[in-house]
């Protein structure tokens, strides 16, 4: 990164969090952010594969998909979308507070983001229970009961994809909660300061990505056939 002949950097004062193989905190921050973006690129391809399966089968079975989607209660999905968007705002505000060195604010916003994330998972859990009660789980040895029996077979594919996509998304959120707990501890212990807040930014990037996935899942899973079947 440095453009002058650089020798051992021991003459300059070290930030305690500067790793020894980096020349500067700048190089370390740039590298960490770049690394997280590459990881998010892998996540785009990961979810993308499942979305491809969705696309293929929706094109093959448009009516079954529309019907199945219309049987999913829209309100919990809409509330969850709002919850995640608010949590993205609070996450961005946490990073902002880290940049301005307002420690208590960082802690506050991390906690609020976590509460919102937990709320999302709670609502999701309730939705999953509803599916179980209605007989919409297409496996686990359970009986699949679909109101329009002639579409039942292909509706199973819709619900398989529904559970895979939302399940993977929920797993990612749980990981996100773990990462935020870690950040909370680091902020509390004074590891983070106005020079070294890249970890908060990186966790923020991850959380925003999880939000973006849901931004797509909401219309794709909940809103397919709404204009036809006012389920």
């Amino acid at each position, binding site marked *: *990164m440095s*453009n002058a002949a650089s020798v051992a950097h021991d003459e300059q004062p070290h930030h305690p969090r500067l790793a020894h193989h980096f020349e500067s905190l*700048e190089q370390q*921050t*740039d590298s960490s*952010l*770049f690394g997280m*973006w*590459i990881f*998010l*690129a*892998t996540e*785009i*391809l990961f979810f*993308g*594969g499942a*979305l*491809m399966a969705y*696309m*293929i089968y929706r*094109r093959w079975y448009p009516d079954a998909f529309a019907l199945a989607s219309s049987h999913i209660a*829209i309100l919990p999905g*809409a509330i969850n*979308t*709002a919850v995640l*968007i*608010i949590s*993205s*705002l609070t*996450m*961005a*505000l946490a990073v*902002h507070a880290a*940049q*301005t060195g307002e420690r208590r604010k960082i802690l506050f916003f991390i906690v609020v983001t976590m509460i919102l994330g937990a709320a999302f998972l709670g609502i999701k859990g309730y939705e999953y229970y509803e599916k179980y009660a209605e007989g919409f789980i297409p496996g686990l040895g359970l009986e699949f009961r679909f109101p329009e029996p002639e579409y039942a077979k292909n509706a199973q594919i819709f619900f398989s994809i529904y559970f895979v996509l939302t399940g993977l998304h929920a797993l990612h959120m749980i990981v996100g909660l773990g990462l935020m707990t870690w950040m909370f501890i680091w902020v509390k212990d004074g590891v983070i300061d106005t020079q070294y807040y890249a970890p908060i*930014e990186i966790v*923020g*990037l991850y959380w*925003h*990505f999880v*939000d*973006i996935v849901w*931004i*797509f899942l*909401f*219309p794709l899973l909940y*809103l397919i056939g*709404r*204009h*036809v079947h*006012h389920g």
Partner: protein
Amino acid sequence: MADHSQHHIVPKSTYYLIFTALMLGTGLTWWIATIDLGAMNNVIMLSIAVTKATLVILFFMHVKYSPKLTGTVIIGAVFWLLIMLVMTMNDYFTRDWLHFG
């Protein structure tokens, strides 16, 4: 290449503005879903989703203030996903073709 833009502090007012846009977009998507516009339903709802995602990426994820390399990574990943989708659809869309073209 020392790049100081990664420390750019986005004003909170920008965040609130983007947040409002995202909530409005969500409401709009829900409303559109209840009106029958035929094939346009999908197009409009996905366009809103793409717009929302772009806003999150540019402002919440600071890509507008990040080095070009960041944008390249995102565009590269999306492009690669499109390669997979388009070339697979190339198979599915043409399965009924008995002759070339």
